[in-house]
């Protein structure tokens, strides 16, 4: 079993979620690797949060309602 005492609480919680979902699909060594992966995801998230954002900072992709009759491409993000 993955060494849960060495994990952050968030990793431990998320690992439990995955184990609930995927059951006995992976062995203990594989779950240990998954735990490392979750830690890495957490570290990435921390790096993202190190940059403050304004309300006006939008996701850099524009949603364009789709109409098969005529493609509305004006303003579509290139």
């Amino acid at each position, binding site marked *: 079993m993955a060494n849960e005492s060495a994990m952050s609480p968030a990793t431990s919680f998320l690992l439990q979620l*995955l184990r609930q979902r995927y059951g006995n699909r992976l062995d203990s060594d594989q779950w240990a690797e998954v735990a490392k*992966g979750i830690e890495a995801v957490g570290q990435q998230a921390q790096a993202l949060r190190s940059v403050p954002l304004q309300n006006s900072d939008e996701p850099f992709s524009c949603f364009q309602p789709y109409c098969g009759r005529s493609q509305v491409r004006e303003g*579509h993000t290139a």
Partner: protein
Amino acid sequence: MTSEVIFMPIRRLSEEVRMRRISPQALTHLFLDRLETLGSAYNAVVTITRERALEQAKRAECEIASGHYKGPLHGIPYGAKDLLATSGGIPTSWGAEPFRHQTFAEDATVIRRLESAGAILVAKLAMVELAGGMGYCQPNASFTGPGRNPWNPDTWTGGSSSGSGAAVCAGLVPFAIGSETWGSILGPASNCGITGLRPTYGRVSRHGAMALCWTLDKLGPLCLTADDCGLVLAGIAGTDPLDLSTSEQSYAYSKRTDARRFKIGIPNGVMDGVDAVVRKNFDTALRDLEAIASIESVSLPDLPYTAITRTILLAEGASAFEDFVSSGKASQLTAPEDHYGPYARTTILATDYIRALRLRGIVCKQIDRVFAGATAEAGFDALVGPSRAAPASALDEEFRSASGSAAPDLLGAIGNGAGLPAISVPNGFAAETLLPTGIQFMGRAYDENTILAIACAYQSRTDWHTWHPENL
């Protein structure tokens, strides 16, 4: 058919074909035979498309003979990375055992465009399973086996466009189409000592290509020269109503004729973690570039580029293969680490993915300001760095840990996250191992012609791109 043809750039080959000094049918037979006799030595090939190729070659020959010449790709054989859908019962395996016999009813847009241009599909080329999206960290990650580098078959071609890199390097095809989500064109190009172009995101339609990450995937050419990459890009680029991410900015390849010196920036930190031979060859290349460019260091904005691009990659990849992973079929993949690799990324929070998208916008604008400069004179035509931190690794060697850490790839994180074009060209060899290294030029969005011009100018002053493995 002389051996000179095998490594003849498309520019020259097409002239021979246009002038009817070389027959498309003879050329096709040549490369089909080479694929059959040599392809397996490099694990480069999934399917040789002999029947289709011979039909296309015969048609091309008739068209050219009747004066209906379509352009520089007419009558030229090529290989397609096996994530591009091909009709007519030709499998499209995505490099993955569970999809080994998968077929599609229609060709991918890129395949259709190349057919319209008169190019001849001779093979579906090997790739890392699911374009490396399950977290592979060593070369044996495809049901075709690890991509073997023609320079030394005990070393790796790089991935995930492993077969595309090997096939062009070994003279099995004059050009190949690969794809890059992060590193999968430039890596094989560098490892195999050939030229690979990653176009601007949206320049080339992704319709009919396996999706790993909808906002990171790009299709592009691997060739013997930068000039050839321009010719191929011109044949495949363009808006496509079947792929709404394609840009309405049209593309026409034109070789630069003016004598203006380029302005190239070396981002601080781009050499972190780089191997000594890569550093040596990079420094030599910079001295060669001084004849055509002013070169200076540049500080980039302090942003978490790797975290941004990696979060987008992992979240979109998790979604693209959600049903596949839920089914448990990841256990059928070749690389052991791919059996468990895709699970951790399913824990990425939606707010973190969206945060990465918001930060992407900041990256795009701030990096574009670096290119633009405060004044026209202060701007840059390209940012430069090594294509890879080290030459090709051994086949049994990990190139990163399964959780993702590896030598930093600053230009890869920025370029792929912001959808910017980049080209890798060979810039030398390691003296002891005779493995090639590469240098990459990354350009502003939609400015492929400038980085192609820099790469062409570099190749006019060096001959690394004319070196080929012996006894091929």
